[in-house]
């Protein structure tokens, strides 16, 4: 008897071990594969480059620590670029943990940008429940939705929010989104209803569902999809970070998966041929 395909399958612990090594080793010993930029990433970069210095922009942190490895480097690169260009960043969060994610990035960047002052160049307005309705309400009366910042201080005390009544004087919105509520809701309301330029970053798995919004109507001005896009952005702003170092690990992990797919197919076809031959006998 040739045995079934299941009998011939590799013990999955070997797969786990190889994946572990394929991820861990490149993280310790960097290979340094070259990074090539794609159109969607360049569009995001251009949008920020073209925004006038001193403009107020909204960054929405719609993710939690589960998606941190992919979205955090994007957040870091985008905020870095905004501060570099002299843009004033207003942080909001549609996910409760997004507040801490933004604070981590801001505290990491304060050393590089000591001139950035809380309340003047940056503010964190915290989390607000409600998803799409929150965005809708921000578009009609921003101050009613966020009367205070994350520390409970009145927003009237902060120069960065002077004149911000709705989305009308917002340069662009950038949503770092791990799901719902997130970038889709920003597109549906902030862009489609209020016409604010919009872009965002999403995890690799959710990218196929969001890519249709990058279209001629510019519902999204480019899109950062997954760790590779984060690495590309780091490359564009010449600030290598965790995404760049993670690219080697991701490359090797993908290669291992492809090798296993090939092995799985070879096993399937050889077993099938043997079974057929034995059947004929």
């Amino acid at each position: 008897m040739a045995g079934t395909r299941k009998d011939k399958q590799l013990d999955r612990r070997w797969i786990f071990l190889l994946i572990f090594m394929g991820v861990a080793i490149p993280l310790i010993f960097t290979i340094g594969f070259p990074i090539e930029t794609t159109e969607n990433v360049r569009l995001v970069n251009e949008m920020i480059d073209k925004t006038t210095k001193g403009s107020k922009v909204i960054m929405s942190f719609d993710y939690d620590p589960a998606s941190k490895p992919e979205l955090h480097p994007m957040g870091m690169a985008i905020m870095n670029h905004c501060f570099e260009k002299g843009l004033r960043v207003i942080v909001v969060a549609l996910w409760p943990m997004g507040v801490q994610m933004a604070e981590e990035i801001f505290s990491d960047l304060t050393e590089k940008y000591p001139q950035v002052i809380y309340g003047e160049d940056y503010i964190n307005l915290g989390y607000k429940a409600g998803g799409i309705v929150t965005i809708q309400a921000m578009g009609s009366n921003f101050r009613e939705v966020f009367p205070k910042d994350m520390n409970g201080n009145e927003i009237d005390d902060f120069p960065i929010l002077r004149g911000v009544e709705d989305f009308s004087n917002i340069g662009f919105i950038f949503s770092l989104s791990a799901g719902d509520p997130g970038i889709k809701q920003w597109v549906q309301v902030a862009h489609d209803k209020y016409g604010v330029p919009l872009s965002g970053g999403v995890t690799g798995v959710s990218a196929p569902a969001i890519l249709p919004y990058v279209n001629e109507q510019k519902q999204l001005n480019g899109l950062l999809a997954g760790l590779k896009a984060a690495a590309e952005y780091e490359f564009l702003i010449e600030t290598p970070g965790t995404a760049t170092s993670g690219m080697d690990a991701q490359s090797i992990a993908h290669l291992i998966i492809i090798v296993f797919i090939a092995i799985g197919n070879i096993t399937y076809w050889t077993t099938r041929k043997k079974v057929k031959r034995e059947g004929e006998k």
Partner: protein
Amino acid sequence: MKRKIPLIITFAVGTLLILSEFIPHKPFGRLSGELENWFLIISGFAIILGQLSLFKVNIIKIKRKTPNWQYFIITLVSFMIMVLIGIFWGTEKNPGIFGNGQIIVDTIGYKPFDYLFHNVYQHLQATMFSLLAFFIASAAYRAFIARTVESNLLLFAAILVMLGNTSLGSSLTGWLPHSLSFLHLPRISEFIMKYPNTAGQRAIMIGAGLGIIGSSLRIILGIERSYLGGK
């Protein structure tokens, strides 16, 4: 009457919100703005309701000693610890009822809530998500088999996108001359994502959009009543 009043409210509010999209002037615009505020307030309460529900569901499971009931105790204990230390000593910049817990901050470097958030919660969540890599690899090995034309197409597209989405893909075909640059793996990956994928996704989105309109109308008109509970 118990069912009629919610149905009337749903009909009135639903109709009003649809009208306000087309007539954003008084009184529709203002009323819809007011209703948005109501929604935000109710959403805040929904979080509390969710926490109470979490408590209730877990306590019932522990009482009934359902399989793995010990894990539900861990859930509740973890939940209580985070809630209580948040109330007692607050978070990063907000004091709790016992102030800022300066002695604890001097000892561990963070407030207790932030310490657990940075050192326990974040890593637990990242670990859970990272485990996917192992299971995806194992599942791909078992399930990605070229049995039919469709599965061949899927397999081929998946491999191209997987390679194109890494720096390795750029290195593998980076040497190609300019005239053959359309064969460059990142280009192929971009093409697959931009055209076949977008076309398929748009079809799904249009279908889902029509479905949402249909089910919303059913709710507004009182045909769909399952949200009221009961039959």
